[in-house]
């Protein structure tokens, strides 16, 4: 009888952070329980200990003639190059599209077409056009980030209240001043959200990009290890990509909080 209210107060006492901790703990326990007891074959799901061994092995000996840090560094370089260029161009394009209907009419079919296109579909074309160096990989990531950022920026501009723009104009602001001091700051929150989404999709596309001219990068490592069902390396690679993506996302969030400190205080 008394167990139920006790559980209730326990539930209330649990902060969200603690709930997150419980969720992670449950997954970990299920993982250990399923693998260490030999219930699940290593091929399907490596145990935490074999994952740890795999990680140490990768750190010590690297993967196929490169250290794990080199692979991670190259991946990060590609992700950042593709993301920064794609997000910048996309944001400018989106701002212009949100501000001017003719610009929107011109670019939106291209962007709408590009956005849902699976990258693997044009992989060979990218090789034919740009070769097998870094260029086609970065272009692929650029093309992934661009539409996401553009649409976010466009929506941001469209969401700016007309009242505010009119107020600025009535006080004699020029078109540029309206854009610079009203439209852009108001859209900034959406732009950052778009950037965070873009990092996500760029990371998701990393494996496709690294198929192009393989033998380097975490995405390629996952792909190559998967060919021989080396689930330990695959999991280490997935965790590494996941953690790097999470850190980048947190970094963007921190920048956003600093830059757009007025967000949500309309």
């Amino acid at each position, binding site marked *: 009888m008394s167990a139920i209210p006790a559980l209730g107060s326990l539930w209330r006492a649990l902060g969200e952070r603690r709930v997150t901790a419980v969720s992670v703990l449950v997954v970990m326990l299920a993982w250990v329980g399923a693998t260490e007891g030999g219930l699940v074959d290593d091929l399907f799901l490596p145990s935490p200990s074999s994952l740890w061994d795999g990680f140490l092995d990768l750190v010590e000996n690297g993967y196929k003639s490169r250290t794990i840090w080199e692979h991670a560094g190259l991946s990060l370089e590609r992700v950042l190059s593709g993301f920064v260029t794609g997000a910048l161009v996309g944001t400018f394009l989106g701002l212009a599209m949100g501000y001017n209907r003719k610009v929107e009419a011109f670019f939106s079919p291209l962007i709408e077409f590009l956005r849902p296109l699976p990258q693997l579909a044009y992989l*060979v074309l990218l090789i034919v056009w740009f*070769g*097998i160096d870094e260029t086609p990989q970065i272009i692929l990531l650029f093309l992934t980030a661009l539409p996401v950022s553009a649409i976010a920026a466009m929506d941001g501009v469209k969401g700016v209240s007309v009242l505010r723009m009119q107020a600025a104009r009535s006080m004699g602001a020029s078109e540029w001043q309206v854009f610079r001091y009203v439209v852009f700051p108001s859209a900034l929150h959406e732009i950052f959200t778009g950037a965070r989404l873009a990092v996500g999709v760029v990371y998701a596309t990393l494996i496709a990009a690294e198929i192009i*001219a393989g*033998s380097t990068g975490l995405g390629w490592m996952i792909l*190559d290890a998967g060919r*021989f*069902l*080396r689930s330990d390396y695959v999991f280490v690679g997935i965790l590494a990509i996941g953690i790097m993506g999470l850190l980048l996302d947190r970094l963007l969030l921190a920048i956003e909080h600093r830059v757009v400190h007025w967000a949500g205080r309309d």
Partner: protein
Amino acid sequence: MSQDQFGVLDRRIFLKTALVSGAALTAGLPARSLLAAGKAPDTIRVGFFLETKPTMIAKGEGWFDKFAGGKCAWSEAGSGAEINTAMAAKSLDIGLAIGSSPTAAGISQKLPYQLVGMVDNIGPAEDMIVRKAANIKKPADFKGKKVATPFGSTSHFRLLGFLKVNNLTEKDVTVLDLRPDAEVAAWTRGDIDAAYVWSPAKAKMLAAGGESFPTYKELDAKGYVIADLIVAATAFSTAYPDAVTGFLRAYGNALEMWKTKPADAAAIVAKQAGVTPDVARHDMEEYDFVTLDHQLSGDWLGSPGKAGKFAEVLKRTADFLVVQKSIKAAPDLGSFQKAINTTFLAQAAKAKT
């Protein structure tokens, strides 16, 4: 869609097995002979490659279905790794023409299948192509050059063997992981200097400023033999031994046709693979299609109870893959000998047409 199909099939096999063993128990007979009596599976799930080989004759003419006694459900694989993955997931009954290096990896990882026959000895069919302009005349000339190959394939294994035999490392030579179609694209742009691959990519590069740089003889002599094999899921071959025998018999007939009527054979293969008969014939002439009888000799798989030399090839391949860190560990030679089951092959060879 295929998932459902597989699920249904598994259940069907299970039911049948349960029924048969139930009957065996009541009749007081050994279950095994009765299991063999339930010899015709409804569907045989075959993973295959679309390629110019006699396998395509037996497929196109419906011989596999006819001799195995069941309808073959064909799924095209992109690589041996895909066949291994599907076998691990118990979604395939037979893997047709899987390369020796993925097979060695699969046996090492205790995938639930056995090696039951060979499609071919690859020989010169997979070899090095170099760009004439790159001026590569001897192995040392590969230093600083870019060589592409599909990673995880038999070609990759041979290429790494080539580097090792010639004291080259992946620091001297840039080895790139490219699918055959991507290799042709990169070759056309002049981005790679050489490639280790099979036709049609090989033929296209030869036609576009490439020349061959033969490596296979030396590598075969040094133990880097590569072959395409037939694997059968152990659960399937136990339940339907006659189907496996029939499958191999169908391939034996196709080999016979290629040997006696090459023009007719090439025409059928060409139609299946979507190339001209000339191309099909030329491609097939590069392979060494080992007859069923010869597969049973000590040079290759050996006969039941007497393992042939090929088990050593698999063992060496697996050891190499361990050094490459592709697989964790390789079992001893005995495990490879045990993974080769030639009983079906022996019966198929005896049965002849």
